Every structure is written in structure tokens, then in C-alpha cells.
């Protein structure tokens, strides 16, 4: 295994510090012509993490399978409650808004997504999905490697995590990705309000004339300057974006509203956004929690695409969900479910709607769990190559067959 040393922000320095005058520090993203493959121009990927391990069986419900009803005497959803897709499966009843999008051909569902030798630890399995490395311990994330390799203009906001903590999928060798919690206003440095505070603060990142030398000094000073400028500029830039979409007042609603705002601010040059929702870790009394979370997700996604459409952005934004694992087929004694393996992934937006992948068998289980039929790296490869128009090699180890989910 290789633990590459992570190196940050060698590129964004020029992307920010060299720009002066009235153009704004992010003007460069606009000024440069993106070197996109035909059709991939200005496309955006939103990766949505259903944290905690979402129970796929009660999301895409195999209501027609008698084994499902038998294994889930308490949690099983009755056929007449399910939002029917076909004679065997349907969506959780709380996902009406997403079902409407499905009916309009805007949702592709990959059934039974997972990876070999599944790990049942939240931490490790999350790391596997985020690094796309089930074997070693790659220090970089798959979107971080994409940022390092894609020829997008260098810019602090090419990747944005709408999250309090930088997720591992954005760890790159040569890119720094800001993590913004809740709203653009939260990406801010707490600066003393007394006279002179803000200007003095910015100037303190200066690293010249110091009475010592340190190999880390240039990196730290550069990150500090970028953080400072970014936190000043971001709220101003996105402030021009107006929306009439009615987002639900939930965490995921606020996160996707910010994502739409970032996408609708071309000066930011954003291409990949991470959003998280949860926690789906439903060991106890699953039904109420999961129904609420899936309803919030479905409503927020509908508002998000309404908002994007109102600004003419819906055709250039693809959203992909993932969760570190599905859950055990048999319910437990606490009306919940324990950590499992394969689960469905949703790809939303300009897709060829429908069901993909082999439906996982409820009888041929792997240690009581659904066995995976589609490696999640096939989904990643499809999106990297066919949506973002970049080669998947170097981002993903190995060759992964593309899925026909995009039109």
C-alpha cells in the first residue's frame, strides 16, 4: 500500500493571488475557455452522501418479493403503500417528489451497487467509497484525483464541499477544496470588528522578513491568503443569485439551495460539489427516521431541480447519491436494521431514466446481506468519462465498464 503524502494548494495560489484590479479574484475562471470535450462544457456533478448506511431495501422496495415481506415482518412496506415502478419494485412512500421526477425520466437507479469484500465499519466503508480504493489506503479521494488531473481552470471553488468537514473524497495532492457549512455566510473568518481588524488580519499572512525559515511556511501562508480572500469573496459573489424555488426548511434543503446558488454563479467556476444528508444509521426504530430523511431528500432534490431549471442550469447538473453500505436484509429486534452491504445509487438529472443493474437476490445472501451486482466504480467511471468528459484512468485504478445511464 502506498500512503502518498498529501500536498495542497500549489495551484490555487496563482489562481487567486495574481488577479488584481476590479475583476474580482475569481474572474479567471470566466476568462479562460474551458478545455472540455464536446458536450461536456460547464457540466457539474453533485455527489450526495447518504451518511450512516441507508437501508436500500426500504428505499427501492422489492415489494413483490415474498422473501422481503417475510424477512421484514415489522419494517416491511405493504404493496399498496409503495410508489410502484413496476411489478416487483417501487419507491418508499415518502419519496413522492422523486417518484414524479422518475416518471419524467429524470432518475436512473443502479440496483445492488457495492464492492468486493465489503467492510461493515462506517469509517472504513465510507473511506472505500470516497477513495474508490477497497484494498489499500489511498490518501487521496476520487474527486480529489479528478481535480488534480482534469484540465479545468485552477480556482479555489472548482470543487466545493457543502459540509462542516472536508470529506475524504476531495483530498487531493494539488488542490485545495473549501468546506462550507450551511450557507455562504458560514464560510467566514471570525474577524474582530474593531477598527482596522480585517485589513490587519489579512496582512498578517505575510511570510517575509521572518527571523526563521521553515519548509512549510510558503504553503501555510498561501493557504491562509486563499482562505482569507475566499471567505471575503464567496458571500459577495453568490449574493447576486436570486431564487424563487421553495426549498424545504431542512439541512439538505439548505445545502442544495447553496449548491444551486454556487452553480448559478459562473464566476466561481465550480464543477464538483459534495453534499451530505443523514444520519441513516437506523439500528433502532428505523421507519420513522428513514421515512423522514428520504422525504426530506426527495423534496429537496425536487426543489433543487426546479431552481436549476428556472435558471437554465438543469441540463448541466447531474446528481449522484451514495451511501457507505446498505443494511441487513432481516430486521433486528429493535425495529431497526444492522450494517449490510449492497444498496441502490440514484443518478438524477439529464439521464436515461430507469432501473439498471441486476436486482439483488433476497435468497442468495452474503452473510445475511445483499450481494453487490454492480461495482460502484463503474458508476464513477461512467460519470467521469461520459458526463464530465475526462478519462477515468488515473482517477480510478482498473477498467470499469460504463453503464448506459446517460442519454
Amino acid at each position: 500500500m502506498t500512503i502518498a503524502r498529501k500536498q495542497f494548494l500549489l495551484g490555487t495560489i496563482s489562481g487567486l493571488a495574481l488577479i488584481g484590479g476590479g475583476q474580482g479574484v475569481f474572474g479567471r475562471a470566466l476568462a479562460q475557455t474551458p478545455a472540455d470535450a464536446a458536450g461536456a462544457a460547464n457540466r457539474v456533478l453533485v455527489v450526495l452522501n447518504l451518511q450512516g448506511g441507508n437501508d436500500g431495501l426500504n428505499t427501492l422496495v422489492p415489494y413483490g418479493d415474498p422473501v422481503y415481506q417475510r424477512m421484514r415482518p415489522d419494517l416491511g412496506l405493504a404493496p399498496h403503500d409503495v410508489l410502484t415502478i413496476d411489478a416487483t419494485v417501487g419507491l418508499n412512500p415518502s419519496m413522492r417528489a422523486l417518484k414524479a421526477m422518475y416518471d419524467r425520466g429524470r432518475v436512473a437507479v443502479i440496483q445492488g451497487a457495492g464492492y468486493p469484500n465489503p467492510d461493515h465499519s462506517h469509517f472504513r466503508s465510507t473511506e472505500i467509497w470516497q477513495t474508490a480504493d477497497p484494498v489499500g489506503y489511498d490518501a487521496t479521494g476520487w474527486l480529489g484525483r479528478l481535480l488534480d488531473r482534469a484540465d479545468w481552470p485552477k480556482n479555489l471553488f472548482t470543487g466545493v464541499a457543502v459540509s462542516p468537514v472536508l470529506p475524504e473524497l476531495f483530498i487531493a495532492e494539488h488542490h485545495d477544496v473549501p468546506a462550507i457549512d450551511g450557507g455562504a455566510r458560514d464560510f467566514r473568518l471570525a474577524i474582530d470588528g474593531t477598527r482596522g481588524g480585517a485589513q490587519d488580519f489579512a496582512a498578517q499572512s505575510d511570510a517575509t522578513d521572518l527571523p526563521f525559515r521553515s519548509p512549510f511556511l510558503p504553503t501555510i501562508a498561501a493557504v491562509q491568503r486563499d482562505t482569507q480572500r475566499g471567505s471575503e469573496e464567496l458571500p459577495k459573489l453568490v449574493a447576486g443569485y436570486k431564487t424563487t424555488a421553495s426549498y424545504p426548511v431542512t439541512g439538505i434543503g439548505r445545502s442544495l439551495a447553496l449548491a444551486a446558488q454556487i452553480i448559478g454563479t459562473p464566476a466561481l467556476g465550480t464543477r464538483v460539489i459534495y453534499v451530505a444528508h443523514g444520519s441513516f444509521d437506523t439500528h433502532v426504530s428505523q421507519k420513522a427516521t428513514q421515512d423522514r430523511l428520504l422525504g426530506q431528500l426527495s423534496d429537496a432534490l425536487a426543489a433543487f431541480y426546479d431552481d436549476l431549471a428556472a435558471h437554465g442550469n438543469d441540463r448541466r447538473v447531474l446528481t449522484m447519491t451514495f451511501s457507505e453500505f446498505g443494511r441487513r436484509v432481516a430486521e433486528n429486534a429493535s425495529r431497526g436494521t444492522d450494517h449490510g452491504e449492497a444498496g441502490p445509487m440514484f443518478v438524477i438529472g439529464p439521464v436515461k431514466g430507469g432501473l439498471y443493474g441486476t436486482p439483488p437476490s433476497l435468497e442468495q445472501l452474503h452473510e445475511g446481506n445483499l450481494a453487490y451486482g454492480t461495482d460502484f466504480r463503474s458508476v464513477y467511471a461512467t460519470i467521469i468519462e461520459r458526463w464530465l468528459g475526462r478519462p477515468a484512468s488515473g482517477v480510478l485504478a482498473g477498467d470499469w465498464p460504463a453503464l448506459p445511464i446517460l442519454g
Partner: protein
Amino acid sequence: MDAARTYRPAGALDPRTALLPYRGPWTEREAAHLLRRAGFGGSRDDIGRLAALGMDRAVDSLLDLSAAANLPAQPDGALGWGPHERRASYLAMTSWWLGRMLTSRAPLQEKLALFYHGHFTSAVFQKGTRPLEMIDQINLYHRMALGSLEDLTGQLVRDPAMMRYLDTASSSKLHPNENFARELMELFTMGHGSGYTEQDVRESARAFTGYALSGGRTADRGAAVFLPRRHDAGPKTLLGRTGNWSGEEVISIIYQQTATPRFLAGKLLAYFLYWDPEPELVDAYGRLLEGNGWKVSAVMGTLLRSRLFYSPRAYRALVKSPVEFVVGTLRMVERATLPEPAPLVAAMARMGQMLFMPPNVAGWPGGAAWINSATMLARQNFADAVAMTPMTSDPADYVPGIGGLDVRALAGAIVELVLQGDASPAQRARIAAYLNANAPDDARRVRGAVYLAMATPAYQLA
């Protein structure tokens, strides 16, 4: 790809003199450097005390772990691990350890325990690891902080948190699990690509069978037991030697490999001296480690008294980890007790370090990986919270001589306190100008100036 960037200090190493005793000036600057590395930094008084002792006695005082008396051995209260108890347990555990780091009079013990925690990793709640098992593991690191690394490695074979984290608790003769054997060689002792083979891993895994945890599902902590029936006592060939090796014997064989001193010395130097140490230095330090029976006390003493340690190449040559940043800041402003843990834990998560939950078995990567715009924002905002809000004591308590000083002297005192003088003339002038621009009776004036000192890149460096 950008050219690979190196974080090894500039300038040439003289390997013949590097580890000889330092005989240069001993001022507060050197004392503060020692305290940042062998501890978490400190207040003006802490630094002044070490400065007054002279180098030899200052290092002696840090190596004397008996000064750690009266620290709590475990968190207060029950520590559950059910889905609804985890958060409270985690906060109690973090308060316990950060509290020890903040108040211990033997900070090197805590610093070494933190090093071992990131090296011989385990993680609470993973694979059923109980909070008290994790606390016990940290206390093992406390107890053996300056002892033999070989002995410490041997103890891990029966450490419940380790047994769960790397699966020896469920490994048996019929189904040997390779996880512990692999990470033992790859991450704990020899290092990846150092010459051991997959065959060596498989054979070692057989030696580590037979251990299990008793106590059942409800015990606060499992107890390690050895079940001869589950142990594979047959002959094993590993690293070129054949015998009916037990787990202890495998560790002894590993500690006879040339890769082991090199790997462990490299890790210690990158943690206490500077990043990416030169191979000839690593070799020399590894020989010292092995020659002293793997005793950390001996090699720490040599390093902390060495010319290289006090040379410009080692000075401010490491990035503070979030734990060092937080504890160091709180020690500097003379917090006697830890603030409310929930916001502290949230801030540290944003900085990228949660105690008892390393990101994976390889621990925290450290160095430049600590620094990105998300973590920088969290660091600056934490510094702001400490300086600007009533979370801390009044600056009058921790900025020396605050009352009688004119603006220039006050700016100088703040630069001394926060940066031990490591500011540029422009940075000093800005702090003085800031003090001038705000009325002397404005209570926020000194706080803002302290924050401006913490807002310099130097403050991120240990």
C-alpha cells in the same frame, strides 16, 4: 503533475555532529521550542521556568514522568457504546484526554501517547471497541511512554482495543485473520516494501491465533484470554526462520530485522524533529534506538539535547497538529480547565483530528496534510474564539505586565507570548498600529492584538 514538493528543511545535514550535545545559547526561544516539541507549548511562566533550568535540567524535567501524578486515570461517569450513548461517551473521553494534556506537568508523556495513538492505531466504536478499552490502550501508552518499543508492541497482542480493531479477537487456527499480522509489519514496525512477503504475513497471522476476549457483549471492557485450542502451534517459517513461533516470538523476530529500527526512527524523527529526515540521520538514530534496547527514554534524551534539535533547520520545521494547536493555545492563555467539550470537539473535527478516531489504520498523515482552506478556517476561528470571547480568562491574566506598558512594549510582550519573537517587523508594526487605533480602555483591544499575533503563519508551526 506539479513537481513534488519537499518539506525537508533546506541546508545540509552533518551526520557526524547532528546528535552531539548542544552547547549554544539557552534562552526562552530555545526553551519554548523544546516545550512545543516535547509538550504542547505553554504560558510565559512555563517557558521561563525551563529557560531558568538550563538545557540539561530542562530536558531532565520533561523526561521525569513522576511529575504526572494526580491526573485522572479515566473519564468520569458511565461510558456506554450504544447508538444513543456514543456521543456523550465520546465527549467524556475527549475531555479526559485533552484535560490531561492541558494540565499535566509531564506533557511529554501525553505527547508520546498521542504519537503512539497515531502509530499503533485503534478506534473507538469500530468493530465493537468499547470506550474503556480505548482508554485502557491510551493508558498503556501513558505507562510505557518512555519504555521499550519492543515491549510496547508485545503488550498490544493482548490489548483489547487492538484485538478488536485488527481482528485478532476473532482469529483462530481454522480461520486465521491476517489483519494484525499485516499492519504489524506494514505500519507498526518494518514499513511497507521493506522486504517481508505475503508469505511472512500469512505465517505470522497463524502465530497470532488463540487470543480472544472474555466478558461477553455487556462488559465495559473485554479481557484478553489465551485459548490453546484456537492457537496454531505448528511450525511457521517467516522472515527466513522456522519454528513453532508464538505471537511474542514473531515480534521478537521482527525486532531483529534491519528495517525495524529504520522505520521506527523515521517516524519518531518526523514527529519530534522535522519532516522527511535524511536517510543517514534515520539510520544513525535507528542504531541508537536498537542499541539502547528500544528504550524511548534514551533516544528522546539524546534528541532533545542534540545540536540538530536546536539548529535553525529544526526550528519551526513542523506543522502543529490540531491537538497541539488547541492544547497549546489553551495552555498559552493559562486555561486551568478545559472549556465545554462539544464545541471543542466540533472545532477539532473541522481541523481534521478527532481523538480516538484516526482516519484509518495508518493514523493521521500529518505535515502539510493538516493544512487546507477548510482546516485553516477552523484554526483561525478557534484562535478567534479563544482570544476574543470570554471563553478564556482576561488577557490581563496571561499577557505579562499589561497594565504599565506603552503600545510598543505591549505589542512586543504579545509577540513574545504568542510567537516567542518569531514575527516580522511588519507584523509587529501592525499589532502596534492596531493597539494604537483602539482606545486603551476598550477591553477588546488586547484580545484583538493577541488574535493578530495568532493570525500569523508562524503560529501554525511547532
